[in-house]
């Protein structure tokens, strides 16, 4: 038996893994979660729909604040039958894809550190810093934006912001090639990730894996394409799918997703319509009685929010289906049969955020 965590630097938060070993081989892995439980779902019942936007930012996945806001507000807008104006839909799409870039950069950088490639971290955070600066100029926040509102977004873009984003996009594509040079060509990196932690397709589906983890195992599914929300239905993008199911496939899926995100941002800015950024609803929105389930593709996978309204300005119940949670439980399947040294490589490749797992 080996206890890994809860204060282990490579668990990316407070996760305890109870690893049962036979010599150096992993027999079983049981993730012990709950160290970062913040009872967001219950707190939401005592806050208004508007205040909950601020709560989704920090209570759920802290690296993808806007993706959380999106999932929650999509549910709110479905219950309230609020029509979001086209400009707001495009603005949200641009922000969500920038958020995906920044989240994947954190994953790549920290995973690089886990595997001993410390320089990648610095390069990733250099680019991430520029994305955060762009967020700061548009939303006022770097990590916690509180930018989306029921029926639209808070503020319109500042002058010249889209040009700065396009300039960043052009530069970023070259940076992705740089990461490939640093990692994909490196035999030490390949030896640690290629063929390691294989999750077969049927096990991925059975364990409820979602997002990049499922797509690396050959599950050709992306919520953005299957159930388009915001402006995704009007934009062209590819969904990278790999059949191998190992750490290297999960790495390649995310690297390719970064390129696709850049493509989506460029298209969305080119198509960005003028007009209203917010539907004509009360600031402190009140919803009719009803319930809705909203499904979104957060950078980590399939983020679902089930919202029940009893009328009034507070939700009756909110259930969050967190992507990290289901991916974490596919971890046991991936790790069985590998060596202790692979634990960190496999755990990093899943890309979990513990505040998303525990909520």
């Amino acid at each position, binding site marked *: 038996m080996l206890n890994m965590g809860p204060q282990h630097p490579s668990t990316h938060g407070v996760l305890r893994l109870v690893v049962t070993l036979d010599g150096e081989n992993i027999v079983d892995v049981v993730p012990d979660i709950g160290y970062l439980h913040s009872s967001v779902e219950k707190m939401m019942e005592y806050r*208004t729909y508007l*205040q909950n936007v601020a709560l989704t930012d920090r209570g759920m996945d802290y690296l993808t604040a806007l993706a959380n806001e999106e999932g929650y507000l999509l549910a709110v807008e479905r219950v309230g039958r609020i029509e979001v104006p086209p400009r707001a839909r495009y603005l949200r799409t641009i922000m969500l894809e920038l958020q995906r870039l920044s989240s994947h950069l954190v994953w790549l950088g920290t995973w690089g550190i886990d595997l001993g490639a410390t*320089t990648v971290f610095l390069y990733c955070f250099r680019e991430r810093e520029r994305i955060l600066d762009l967020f*700061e100029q548009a939303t006022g926040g770097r990590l916690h934006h*509180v930018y989306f509102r029921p029926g639209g977004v808070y503020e319109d873009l*500042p002058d010249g912001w889209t040009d700065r984003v396009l300039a960043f996009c052009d530069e970023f594509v070259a940076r992705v090639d740089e990461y490939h040079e640093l990692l994909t060509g490196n*035999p030490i990196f390949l030896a640690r990730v290629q063929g390691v932690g294989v999750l077969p397709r049927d096990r991925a589906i059975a364990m409820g894996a979602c997002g990049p983890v499922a797509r690396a195992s050959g599950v050709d599914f992306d919520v953005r394409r299957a159930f388009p929300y915001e402006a995704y239905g009007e934009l062209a993008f590819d969904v990278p799918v790999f059949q191998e199911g190992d750490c290297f496939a999960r790495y390649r899926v995310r690297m390719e997703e970064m390129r696709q995100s850049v493509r989506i941002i460029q298209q969305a800015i080119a198509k960005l319509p003028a007009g209203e950024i917010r539907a004509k609803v009360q600031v402190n929105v009140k919803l009719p009685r009803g319930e809705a389930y909203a499904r979104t593709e957060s950078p980590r996978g399939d983020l679902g929010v089930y919202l029940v309204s009893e009328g009034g300005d507070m939700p009756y119940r909110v259930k969050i289906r967190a992507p990290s949670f289901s991916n974490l439980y596919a971890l046991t399947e991936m790790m069985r049969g590998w060596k202790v040294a692979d634990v960190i490589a496999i755990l990093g490749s899943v890309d979990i955020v513990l505040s998303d797992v525990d909520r």
Partner: protein
Amino acid sequence: MEALATRAWQAVVGLYAGLRVTFRALVGRKNTVMYPLEKVNVAPRWHGLLALPVDPETGSDKCIICFQCERVCPDRCIHIEAGGKGKDRLLTRFDIEMDKCCYCGLCVEVCPTEAIVFVPHYETSTYNRANLVYDLADLRRAAPKEPIARGVIAMRGRP
């Protein structure tokens, strides 16, 4: 033997590719700022310190004491009290507990008179938690000296 040579060659190529990126970054533009010596200009919309600007025409607060910001605050960190009746109604207390504040900006959004705004100031750390309770005088002092659009003001020095 041949496999070993291939792997050694791959390692050399991989190392070379990686080091090329490193050296490119070494001679390229510097990305870091020597922070306490050099300051960073944050964006005008930065969710920094909250402030109560004084109306330059009347010389008094823009606040009309509607309590909307107090009600909307998710952390309940704004405390307002007012005295007087009718036109003489005055703010007697406007405390913001910045240690509780989550910088969501909902108070700025709901304010009908733009009486509460964000100031792009980011050095608010202190050794004592009591220093983080900002009262009316502090919030007025933090305010920019010119009238501003909501949340969009130029960078100022320390309040």
